[in-house]
């Protein structure tokens, strides 16, 4: 005689005769009542509007163009109702950061504390860190920075500034720093 601990398999085996037992057949009046109730609630022969729409929309000829239309609509409506990504303040900061990265790439020494750009940045640092519109501060510093650059650098700087401005504050969307 085994004295092992019972396993799930043994329990399932013992429970099977009951599991296999069929439910008693329901009485005839129950059957009739359920049939009548079910017939009253059934939409026989006339599929519901949703069934028709679902069948129509799930066909490849309709479903795929419909999906494309929904996606296009979502892409058009999304920015209008869910916002335009970063706020004006965040875009300003991103513009300022990009400008400083550019200046540091050109004149790493000048951008250090002792350098001309570094000193200029330090002078305006409090403005740059406390403003909600870093781009406007940078805009006002452009002439000062420009004077520190050679003519070709100045042209490249202006061009890069125009690109950054168009990126973060596109005129087409009526955005201004």
């Amino acid at each position: 005689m085994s004295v092992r601990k019972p396993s799930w398999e043994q329990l399932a085996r013992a429970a099977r005769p009951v599991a296999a037992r069929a439910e008693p057949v329901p009485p005839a009046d129950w059957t009739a009542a359920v049939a009548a109730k079910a017939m009253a609630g059934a939409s026989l022969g006339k599929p519901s509007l949703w069934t028709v729409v679902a069948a129509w929309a799930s066909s490849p000829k309709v479903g795929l163009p419909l999906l494309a239309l929904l996606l296009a609509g979502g892409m058009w409506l999304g920015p209008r109702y869910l916002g335009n990504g970063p706020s004006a303040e965040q875009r300003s900061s991103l513009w300022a950061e990009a400008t400083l990265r550019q200046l540091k790439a050109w004149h790493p020494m000048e951008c250090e504390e002792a350098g001309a750009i570094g000193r200029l940045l330090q002078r305006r640092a409090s403005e740059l860190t406390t403003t909600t519109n870093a781009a406007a501060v940078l805009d006002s510093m452009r002439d000062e920075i420009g004077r520190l650059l050679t003519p070709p650098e100045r042209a490249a700087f202006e061009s890069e500034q125009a690109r950054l401005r168009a990126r973060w504050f596109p005129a087409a969307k009526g955005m201004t720093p």
Partner: protein
Amino acid sequence: MTACLERVRAGDNAAARDLVDALAPLVGKIVGAHLPWRLSADDLRQEIFMKVFARLDQYAGVVPFEHWVARVALNTCRDHQRGEQRSREVRWTDLGEQEAAVLESIAHETAAPDATEGIAARELAERLLATLSPDDRLVVTMLDLEQRTAAEVRELTGWSITGIRVRAFRARRKLRKQMEQLQEGPRP
């Protein structure tokens, strides 16, 4: 069955009664095997028939009608099981006297269990199955208690054979763990 369905679709009440009569054993068996706790079998059977009739226009005739009805019935049971609060584990102190006794007796593997033991074993199995997710519970009930094959389960649920086997393997592992915890836990 096809002729009967056509008559039901045409609004024939007598055909509807015949259909309910013909399907009652099948629906009854599924309800009996997958009846969620605290739900009357009659209510559930009635709900299943209401759904079958309401969705009759969705039956495309791709699978046998009985399989389609069985799937509606299983899904209805599963929906109710999803709404149930699942018990996390079964403890020795939760067991009734007969459930505890049946656990002791099946360990000794003596004679086949009598009717009372069978019912107690079924109740204990139900308790353990209630710790599983509705899908795991469905697969293990069909494979281990109803002794259906994986192919039959696939026909009734629409799941893949591999998915069914993997689910059964994991579910049985959980049940074994539950059985171990139950026997190792404190006893009164």
